[in-house]
């Protein structure tokens, strides 16, 4: 039996080892509520897209788990041991260390966007901090796209989950890493002005 580390709506993550190395496997489980063909298609497409995004992010210079093996619905990757940034924000962290982490994850967003991909769920809950190094995890909602909208949504999610000053440190790192940062920033502003979702500001998870 593998040890269950975490359970999401789509997948379970188990601790395992591969070739003697510490690893995790993300396994997309079947959903009984949906018809078999749809269930199979969603799980296999998403597994492939996620593996591709993970590899692309690493190539672009983002610190992320190392992709080891991909099966139909399974992704094996190296295990990042550390603390989730969300937890660090709640429990407190030294200002100097936090600033560096925020700049780094801002830069990671810039690197991903420069490589024409968006993470899709870029929140502190998906940042693992090991020592003073930040790692991006969970590329399950990532999209390979040049669309400014998708990139701006990465910024929006992070902005909503961070205190105001923290987000400006984040943006410093972002601007340095991405030459077209102005475009995503101005789209971020226009998304925030869209009326329908203005009331949806409750910070969660």
């Amino acid at each position, binding site marked *: 039996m593998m040890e269950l580390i975490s359970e999401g709506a789509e997948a379970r993550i188990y601790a395992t080892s591969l070739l003697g190395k510490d690893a995790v496997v993300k396994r997309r489980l079947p959903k009984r509520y*949906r018809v078999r063909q749809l269930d199979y298609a969603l799980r296999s497409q998403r597994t492939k897209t996620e593996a591709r995004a993970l590899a692309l992010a690493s190539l672009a210079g983002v610190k992320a788990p190392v992709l080891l093996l991909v099966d139909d619905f399974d992704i094996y990757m190296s295990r990042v041991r550390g603390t989730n940034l969300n937890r660090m924000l709640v429990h407190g962290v030294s200002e100097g260390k936090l600033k560096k982490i925020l700049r780094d994850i801002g830069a990671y967003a810039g690197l991903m966007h420069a490589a024409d991909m968006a993470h899709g769920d870029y929140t502190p809950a998906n940042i693992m901090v090991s020592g003073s190094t930040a790692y991006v995890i969970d590329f399950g909602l990532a999209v390979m796209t040049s669309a400014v909208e998708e990139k701006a949504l990465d910024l929006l999610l992070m902005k909503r989950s961070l205190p105001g000053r923290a987000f400006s440190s984040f943006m410093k790192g972002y601007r340095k890493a991405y030459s077209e940062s102005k475009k995503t920033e101005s789209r971020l502003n226009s998304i925030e002005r869209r009326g329908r979702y203005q009331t949806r500001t409750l910070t969660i998870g």
Partner: protein
Amino acid sequence: MPVLGIESSAHTLGIGIVDNGRILANEKRMYRIGNKGILPMRAAALHTKNLHSALKRALDKAGLGIRDIEAIGYTKGPGLGPCLEVGMLAARSIALRYGMQIFHVNHAVAHIEITSHMCRACDPLVLYVSGGNSQILAIADEPYKHYHVYGETFDIGVGNMLDSFARDAGFKRAWGSEVASAAVGGSYISMPYTVKGMDFAFAGLMTNAVKMLKSHALKDVAYSLQETAFSMLCEATERALLLTGKRELIVCGGVAQSARLQEMLGLVSAGHRARFGVAPNEFNSDNGAMVALVAEKLLRAGARHRLEDCSVNQKYRVDKVALEWK
């Protein structure tokens, strides 16, 4: 003393009477949609015409006279302007004539409350699915007690999508339930699937399904459309269930009448050991009892709504409503 509720936000005029949470009457008069959708002015005219008889019948069923009613509630929105105005004017007139307290009620809140009431749910995750709305909600405390929207449609409601498809497919009665009947025995064809976190979109799916009618059998298209749309709702709901950690899941609104959607959501909640609840269909489609129920809660909680605030609001957001009785 009993409380009366008037619902007239769309195709249904509903008059409900509630006493201490017990439903004494739940009268309905429905506008026939046919293949043309709702024509708001015509629906409003029909509601006006039916108002007196529906009110009288509701009172007769409850064995009451109008003077036995303590307070009155009506649907302020969201909904179709001309239709909402009929209920609002009727409620104001009755309240003034008989010196009753009047309460304005949000349509979505009323759907959620009656289902919570019937399923004895205390703090559920809610999937609210109707013609104009598709939202995932749960109670939040800040800045005031309200239903926070965790996820919702980016474009049209799931009911509206099924109705529009039914119209384009040439159904004589363009209803979601007719799509369900047409789907029997169909097999699955791949369709666009759009879920983003806990939000979803239906307009692209509908356009695609209508195009597919040219090259595929109706039963296959209807089946695949329904399966895809409901699967999207289930995925977003499951994500919200994990995020919020709620132990109860309820579904309400017109589309909650779908047996297939109920079955799927039952499986979603069973997977996370949450209790699943749905009200009898009479209370999933629009009705007056749900409005009366919320008005009674407001009355018992000591809330007061001023007559000049008793207007209509076609785009009345559910998350703007303070739950004064909670």
